[in-house]
């Protein structure tokens, strides 16, 4: 994280420490968390609390096994940030053990086993998310339904959310419904127009609630860009690629494809673009590389959403592009000052 602004003179670095950057990213999620709490009840906040405790405990456990300074690494807030991102990504009424599994896997396997912060090739939060998505498909699809709830104003109360997370809420089914992406995915033979007029998840209250969530994360993300915690390249390329893919297919087949607006305002599009794909450790470093990396994720998200087995593809898109990030970096090295053109990788025996 600190790499973004390191340039001589180094006195200007004051304050831009890893912990500051992590803290800013966490603060930038506040608008989104607030909107999610307003729409889905207290579940998201409870998830974040559970995830935070689990993350700190597993990080401390592994650090002490690895004989590293526990307090020093806990204070950089990176584990806490992973927990916050996972708490947001998981459905608000998901059982507590799903959250704990995801966080423990993210911290222990995806981060610490590779050597801790800065050495992980994959985004830890998305590894944890993918693990629980693959392992527990049923609880992972139970999002709190916004359709009737919003209409009647009956968002689950604090105690109801707590009950849903720690025990089984008997009438949980009346609170949950498919997300718009899930609804659109399972429209089967229906044409788009018919789906938007008949499927519950694709009605205005449901769509607009996801529009609100995405808008809130867009706001937080723009704040991060303004603070120069992240650069605009990855999110812009991601969203542009997603919109372009959606636009092309919408133009050719408007009866079955969804509009670019639908793709940009549902699911984890904004959250993924600004908070997940911009992870400085596992993404690309050069600006051109970031553009390629973001565009790749955007294309993959569209492919997975449209033809894949899962309704949303942010996690898998990001993980797949994490694989490619070193290769992209290898081919997009910027021109070194004083040199004619960029050296592409190692050229043994040559010096230009």
């Amino acid at each position, binding site marked *: 994280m600190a790499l973004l602004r390191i340039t001589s003179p180094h006195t200007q670095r004051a304050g831009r420490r890893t912990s500051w950057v992590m803290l800013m990213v966490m603060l930038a999620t506040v608008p989104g968390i607030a909107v999610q709490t307003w729409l889905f009840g207290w579940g998201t906040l409870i998830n974040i609390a559970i995830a935070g405790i689990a993350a700190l405990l597993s990080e401390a456990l592994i650090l002490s096994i690895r004989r590293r300074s526990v307090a020093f690494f806990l204070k950089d807030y990176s584990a806490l940030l992973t927990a916050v991102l996972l708490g947001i990504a998981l459905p608000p009424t998901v059982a507590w*053990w799903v959250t704990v599994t995801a966080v423990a896997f993210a911290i222990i396997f995806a981060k610490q086993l590779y050597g801790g912060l800065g050495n992980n090739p994959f985004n830890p939060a998305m590894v944890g998310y993918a*693990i629980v998505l*693959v*392992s*527990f498909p049923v609880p992972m699809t139970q999002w709190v339904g916004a359709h009737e709830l919003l209409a009647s104003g009956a968002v689950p109360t604090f105690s109801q959310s707590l009950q849903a997370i720690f025990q089984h809420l008997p009438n949980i089914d009346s609170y949950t419904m498919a997300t718009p992406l899930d609804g659109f995915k399972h429209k089967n033979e229906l044409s788009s127009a018919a789906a938007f007029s008949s499927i519950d998840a694709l009605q205005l209250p449901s769509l607009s609630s996801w529009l609100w969530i995405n808008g809130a994360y867009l706001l937080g993300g723009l704040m991060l860009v303004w603070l120069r915690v992240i650069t605009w390249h990855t999110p812009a390329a991601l969203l542009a690629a997603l919109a372009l893919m959606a636009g092309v297919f919408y133009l050719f087949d408007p009866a079955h494809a969804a509009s670019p607006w639908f793709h940009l305002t549902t699911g984890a599009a904004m959250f993924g673009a600004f908070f997940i794909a911009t992870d400085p450790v596992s993404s690309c470093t050069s600006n051109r590389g970031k553009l390629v990396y973001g565009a790749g994720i955007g294309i993959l998200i569209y492919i997975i959403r449209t033809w894949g087995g899962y309704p949303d593809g942010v996690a898998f898109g990001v993980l797949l592009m994490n694989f490619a990030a070193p290769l992209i970096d290898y081919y997009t090295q910027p021109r070194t000052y004083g040199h004619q053109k960029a050296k592409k990788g190692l050229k043994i025996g040559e010096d230009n």
Partner: protein
Amino acid sequence: MSTEDTLTSENPQESAPSANYSEIIYNGLWKNNPALVQLLGLCPMLAVTSTVVNALGLGLATMVVLMGSNVAVSLIRNYVADAVRLPAFVMIIASFTTCIELIMQAYTYELYQILGIFIPLIVTNCAILGRADAFASRNPVLPSALDGMMMGLGFTVILVVLGGMRELIGQGTLFSDMQLLFGDMALHWKLVVFANYPDVLFAMLPPGAFIGLGLLIALKNFMDEREQKRLAAQKAQQGPAESKRVRVTGQTAS
């Protein structure tokens, strides 16, 4: 192949048996374990170890084939020309695999159906061809048989441990469906460790097997390292030997 290197360097003369039986046992079970060190036969290991019974079934089948082929290869080792030895070995291994396939079809039909393609694929298990070429083709019958058995046992043990881990994490049970292998007496062997356990699909899918195997390899390396440290500390206490030749390449003895 690393095994070939170490073994040829250990046995410079072709006909001289490396008849140190305890070393053969130690090699097969621990030091040169086909699953943990040579990493051979990964394909069946990752694919079928979702439960203990699957792992045990495939492990036993592999062990029988490995022993049989080692004995047969050792018997013909002086009569097969070098140029055609590999096709000959593969034919021998394929015959034993066909035998075990027919036996499983006759006695454990359901398990045979569960394991499916991975029984015929024992032919392609590199551990078997590797042992035939690296050990059995240069050693007498008895050491070869023991080597096949120990290598097979080492493979089976790791398979069963991995299967147990995956079954426990994946379904919360142990030894389920053991009647497929042991008949009716094993009907009640199933151990429900966690009741009301939500199935963790990840552990039952191949990625879970990769991670489980990685953990096992890490555990072995950790134990080896600790043992080495212990030995080094012991040596340091005893004081240095009279003279020591420094070797920087290859395996150093002692």
